[in-house]
């Protein structure tokens, strides 16, 4: 049955749901509730798929993506490939509230965040270091490259474009992404 207010979120991240609800209950706006709810997951590193210290890239670095959207005004703030800043959802809200842009990315997003008062700190953890080391020890498998030389199925990079004929039927390797590794 439809009832309001409502908090709903992907995956069984109960503390995030509760934090959002408590924020609403204490008089916060829906914007505050989404920010606090997602922040809770960033703090708890939910499932290793949110926040610092998880999902290292090929260089072993953790970067964060976040977005917040106000359905009343259609205002949006988002960050992609955010480096060295733990509070991704709060930076996204800062983009919405302190700029006319919608999406900032990479190093420049981090500088924006620092200018907005967010602390710059290392996002690696023992877990992310371990995940990265294991991946290197397995010849960088799995990975997201295709049609490169040397073969990404058997070798680490650096890779170059593979010249000549290559399969255009190659699709996303489904085994790479699962319930512990996702957007």
């Amino acid at each position, binding site marked *: 049955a439809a009832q309001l207010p409502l*908090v709903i979120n992907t995956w069984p991240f109960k503390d995030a749901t*509760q934090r959002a609800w408590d924020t609403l209950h204490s008089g916060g706006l829906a914007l505050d509730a989404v920010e606090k709810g997602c922040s809770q997951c960033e703090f708890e590193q939910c499932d290793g798929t949110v926040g610092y210290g998880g999902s290292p890239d090929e260089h072993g670095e953790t970067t964060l993506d976040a977005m917040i959207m106000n359905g009343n005004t259609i205002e949006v703030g988002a960050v992609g490939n955010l480096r060295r800043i733990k509070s991704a959802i709060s930076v996204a809200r800062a983009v919405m509230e302190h700029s006319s842009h919608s999406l900032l990315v990479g190093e420049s997003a981090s500088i924006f965040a620092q200018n907005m008062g967010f602390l710059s700190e290392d996002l690696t953890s023992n877990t992310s270091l371990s995940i990265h080391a294991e991946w290197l020890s397995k010849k960088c498998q799995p990975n997201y490259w295709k049609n490169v030389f040397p073969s990404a199925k058997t070798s680490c990079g650096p890779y170059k474009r593979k010249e000549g004929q290559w399969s255009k039927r190659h699709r996303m390797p489904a085994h790479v992404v699962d319930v512990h590794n996702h957007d």
Partner: protein
Amino acid sequence: TIGMIVIDKSRSIVAGTSTNGATHKIPGRVGDSPIVGAGAYADSTAGAAAATGMGDIMMRFLPSYQAVEYMRLGMEPTTACQKVIARIQKYYPKFFGAIICANRTGGYGAACSKCPGFNQFHFMVHNPSGTSEQIVDCI
């Protein structure tokens, strides 16, 4: 990844996402989560949706925007979610992904794409009836 939708008593709707993305991604890669209409979308005159899963594929279909537009046309949230998943499956039959949908009156639903190791999707709901973990079977 977490995707969250909040609707307050005045029917203001906000959606958000936060993630550290895919493990072993190529440096510089950004997934669907921070892309408007892909990772999430909100329009207080219709509803909101938030997606999770294989972002490199899901972002190509703007699933959250599509789900909100389905709800604007009067579709129930669960149906809207299912139609979005089905649309992606036409091109990627076994993609890994799920989406939650909520309309402006507080109705909600979810759907997911069945693939090896992923048959059900768990999500959280909190409304005046209380808090509950809910499960949907994937299609």
